[in-house]
Every structure is written in C-alpha cells, then in structure tokens.
C-alpha cells in the first residue's frame, strides 16, 4: 500500500507514465486492421472512461450519490438523434436544415448538424439537465439524494422508451423502443466524414481526444478552488457552508459539469452505435457506470480510468468470448448446466463489487485521501463512506 503511494509520488510516475500511456493509446490503431473487434471494444472503453470520469465529478469529488447518470447518456444521444437524422422530416421544407455537413448528408431531409455542434449542444442540454436534477436534491443528503437521482434517471428513461406515443407539433419525442436510426456518421470540421462500416480508426482517435480533454478537466478541477470546495462539501457540509462555500452553487456546478461530460460521451456513443437506443436507458446502465467508479476508487481519477477499462472488457470480452466459449463453456456444459454468462452479466458485476468491498473497499487505485482514511484511521465514518 505504501509502496504504491511512494511510486505515485515520483516524478517519472507522475509525468512519464501517463505520457507513455497516451502515446501508446494513440499509436494502437496502427497495429490493428481498420475494422477490428478489439478496436471496437477499445472505443467503448474510451466512451465509458469519459462517462465514469463525469460521474466521478459528482459522486467521487462532491460526494453526491447519483444513481440516475443514465439520464445524461439519454440526453446526449437524443441530441444526436434529433439533430443528426431524418427524425424531424419536414422541418425546413423538403430540403431540411443542414449546418456544416457533407454533400451526401445535405441531400437528406430533417435537421443535420455538424458533430462539433452536436457535442456542444449535448453539453449544454446535459448541463441544464444536471442542474435540474440537482435542484430537488439541494436540501437532501446522502441516501435521499440517491433516491431522487434514481427516480430522475427512471423518468428520463421511461419518457424515451415511450416517446413514440408523445408528440409535439406532430413530431415524436423519440422512436420509443424502435430507436432513432440511422444517424449521420460523425462529421468534424477539416476531416473527411467518418464511416463506421469501413474504418474505426477516426472514431477511436476522436474518442481518445475527448477522453484526454475530460481527463484534463478532471485533473485541473481536482486541484482548484472548486475541487477543494467539492471535497469540503463531501467531508462536512455544515463546516463547508460556514467557511464560505455556497452550497447550492457548488452542488449545481458539480451536477452540471458531470452531466455535461456524460452528455459528450452519450452523444458520441449514440453516433457511434448509429442509433438512439432507448432500451439502453435503464437503471442498470447507471449502476454499470457507478460500478466502474467504485471499482477503480471513488474520487481517484486514474482509478476510475482503470475501473472503466476493466469493466468494459469484462462485459465485452471476458463474458462473451472467454466465459461463454471454449473451455469454460465446455466445462459448464459437462456439469449439465445450461445458461449463458451474458444473461447473468449483472450478477457477475455484483459479485465483483462484493469481492471488492470485502478485499479492497478503497478501490483498485484509491484516491490518496480516501486511502488514508480507510487504512490508517478506521472509524465509523469511514465504514459508512466505503458503502456510499
């Protein structure tokens, strides 16, 4: 434990290690074919890293347990669904509305915006949504915040799943469980339009760039006036308020910032999947992201990155490719058991979390603060915090 802390305090571990990791990540696609299953998994891992880092701002830093983070994925993806598909056929006449899109997309009806605009739109929508979720929780603490955010996530999910029955001026809110599809391929200024059927590399690099920006934002905020205020709030709300930290503003900033990050990732995820799939807007998704944060270490930026990568690969590699195939599958069949591990994926995540809480409650790579609290100063409070 102390060896790890020593390692992290060395300058080469602080700069050289992350820089090497970034270069390796950037070069990785050159070692794989343009269309590749592993690259697909890596893109998903990057998306989940961004989402988990966004949630970490809310839960890890500010200590506001948010169980409805899926709402930001839903909003982010819906922004793309609305403004980068033929969902609003008829708007702008037969020609549709087009801003900064390729000549091919310009022929299509509906609203079509450049992906950069969609990202900005998703950020704004989700920052507002975050503040709206935050409002009813301002007077609440701990578990009660969790209940309100949980309900909010459910409300958003249900609206999207039944959105085909809800119309505004004749336009459906969403396509319900049919999902809004197809969406425009990602189109960025100065770059050729992406094509997920031919080449995954541009998607990978774009998402990597987004993750780097999100990481940067996380690191900068952690060691800032705002970051300290969030942690103060997490530690002792009464004392924080008495020291001049405005509770409402500080909490809403946490929700809005975390939400905006989730919105960016959600917009990219939607565009990458080429559909706004309302079937994914469920409670389980929020828990999946939260599990990444807890597994990695609440409040620990690098821990959360590791947690997100680990769970993505458990979900997309370990379960379908290792457990449900080959030797494990044969062994399972030889016992006369007939089930697929994919069907009990959440059970497996739950088991991983239970193991984690028993063996290493501070997470894989814990935040320096929480680590000390849990290992050197065991008390009633720390036990409670590990649970939250």
């Amino acid at each position, binding site marked *: 434990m102390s060896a790890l802390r020593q390692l992290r305090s060395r300058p080469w571990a602080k700069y050289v290690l992350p820089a090497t990791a970034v270069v390796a990540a950037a070069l990785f696609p050159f070692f794989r074919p343009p269309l590749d299953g592993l690259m697909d998994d890596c893109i998903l891992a990057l998306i989940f890293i961004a989402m988990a880092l966004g949630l970490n701002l809310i839960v890890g830093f500010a200590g506001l347990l948010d169980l409805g983070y899926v709402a930001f994925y839903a909003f982010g993806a819906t922004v793309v669904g609305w403004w980068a598909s033929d969902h609003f056929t008829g708007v702008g006449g037969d020609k549709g509305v087009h801003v900064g899109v390729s000549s091919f997309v310009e022929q299509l009806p509906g609203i079509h915006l450049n992906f950069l605009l969609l990202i900005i739109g998703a950020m704004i929508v989700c920052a507002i949504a975050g503040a709206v979720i935050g409002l009813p929780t301002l007077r609440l603490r701990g578990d009660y915040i969790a209940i309100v955010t949980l309900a909010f996530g459910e409300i958003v999910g249900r609206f999207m799943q039944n959105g085909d029955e809800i119309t505004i001026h004749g336009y459906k809110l969403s396509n319900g469980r049919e999902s809004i599809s197809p969406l425009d391929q990602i189109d960025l200024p100065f770059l050729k339009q992406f094509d997920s059927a031919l080449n995954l590399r541009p998607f990978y690099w774009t998402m990597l760039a987004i993750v780097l920006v999100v990481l940067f934002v996380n690191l*900068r905020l952690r060691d*800032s006036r705002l970051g300290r205020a969030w942690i103060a709030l997490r530690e002792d709300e009464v004392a924080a308020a008495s020291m001049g930290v405005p509770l409402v503003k500080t909490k809403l900033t946490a929700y809005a910032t975390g939400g905006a990050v989730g919105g960016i990732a959600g917009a990219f995820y939607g565009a990458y999947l080429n559909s706004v799939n309302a079937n994914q807007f469920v409670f389980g998704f929020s828990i999946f992201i939260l599990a990444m944060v807890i597994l990695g270490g609440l409040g620990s930026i690098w821990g959360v990155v590791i947690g997100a990568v680990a769970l993505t690969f458990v979900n997309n590699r370990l379960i379908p490719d290792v457990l449900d195939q080959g030797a494990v599958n044969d062994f399972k069949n030889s016992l006369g058991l007939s089930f697929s591990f994919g069907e009990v994926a959440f059970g497996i995540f739950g088991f991983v979390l239970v193991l984690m809480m028993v063996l290493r409650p501070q997470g894989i790579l814990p935040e320096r603060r929480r680590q000390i609290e849990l290992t050197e100063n065991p008390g009633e409070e720390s036990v409670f915090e590990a649970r939250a």
Partner: protein
Amino acid sequence: MSVDAETRAEPVQPSSDGALLSTDRVSKAFGGLVAVSGISIAVAPRSIVSIIGPNGAGKTTFFNMLTGLYQPTAGRISFDGKDVTGRRPDIITSLGVARTFQNIRLFSTMSALENVMVGEHSRMRAGLFGSILRTPGVRREEREVRERAADTLEYVGLNSSLFDTMSSTLSYGDQRRVEIARALASTPKLLLLDEPTAGMNPQESARLTEFMERLRGERDLTILLIEHDMKVVMGVSEHITVLDHGEKIAEGGPQEIRNNQRVIEAYLGKQGG
C-alpha cells in the same frame, strides 16, 4: 483574576449603536421546543465577549443563528451595519463572520493546508472555466492563497512539518489550531469560538487565552466565545452574557456576573431550597 481583565481593557458598554454585531430579541423554536427566546446582545468592535450558561442553555443554537446555519424564528440580527437575519452561511462568512465548532469539524481527508485554503473560498474568484484553463490570474491567486494559508498556520503555531498532513491524523490540539487558522483564513471581522478550550489542559487554555488577546491586538478582531472554563471566561472577557433555558438571565462585566444571584442559582441551584 478578573481584576486583571478589567484593568487591562477599557470597559465596553453594550449598546446597539456602534456595535459590530447586535441581535434584537432573537428566538428559535424547534417545533414546540423553544431553544432560544428573545435574546438581545450587542458586541462592540474589538471586544472579547463571552456567552456562558449551563448545558442546553441554547448557546450553540444562538451561534448557529448568528452564522446562518439556523433561521431565527423571530428577531433580527445585524452585523457591521447590515441586516443579516436568515442570510445564507456563506454570505455571512463573506461579510466577515468566521467560526469554529464545539466538536472540531475539519475536512478530515484534506491536509491542514488545504483546510485553511477552503477557508479562503469566499475571498477567491477563480470560476469553473478559469480553473480548467488555469489562467495566469487563477495561477497567481492559487499561489497567493497557498502562501497565505501557510502563514496563517504558522501564526496559530502549527509546526510547518505538519502542513501537508491529513487533518484527521493530527493531534487534538493541532486540530484545534487548524480550525482556528481555517476560520482566520476568511479574514473575518468577528470570530466566533464555540468552546475553544474543550479538552485542553490548564496550560493550553492559558496559552489560548493569550492568543485571543493577540488576535484582537494584531488582527483587529472582535471575538465572541462560548466557554465553560470560568478561568478563561473571567480572564479574557470584557463582557459576559449568561443564558439559561434559552433566555438571557444576566449580562455585565466579569465581576458583576461573578456576584449575580441568578447566575449562581442557574449553575448551582437555589440556596436553602
């Protein structure tokens, strides 16, 4: 002895004009329970004033109203010429009121230095985007705040080797020091100390008493304290307000309070009853 206190400081007359802090018949009821009832006090600038009273007299509740943690049920509070009744705690702090808590409430996973830096929150300007971009202005502010926080910790007498120690692993006395430093970091005009000597031995209490005098002299602070240690109370305060069952039963200089029949009864019970 109290005589020292009286010769050392000019006697301060309580009156609401010219007072830094004054309350006008402030009350607080929790449901049917009246914790504080109609308390009026006036605290002159650069004075040291104590609030005493038996347990459950409503002293901390009164403090919590002064700092905005509780909304008074009735009455008005004015500070530095402004009506602050029911204002938010952070606003009252930014106007110049800082406090410590009866049971130390440091941010346990933050270092001593970071705790004090949080105290400067209301004096800082860095916003969300400034913090992300770390503009030259934000960078400078951050550096200045860090240096000032270190100075403040030095001022309260924390060993500089402990500045980066998690506050929860500090000794009790050091935690008290950090808490006072954190309160001082917001450059207050009025410092509220809630039982600052709780858990201290007589030598430490005496040192704290001296320190309060120093704070007033060097930092132009007005100090309002809740205290049980009568030696400290009588030694340091120019004016004392006594609460019992949520009501003000006496006020005056140390000598008056010492001889006040109602105060003696409140503490010791009625004689010959």
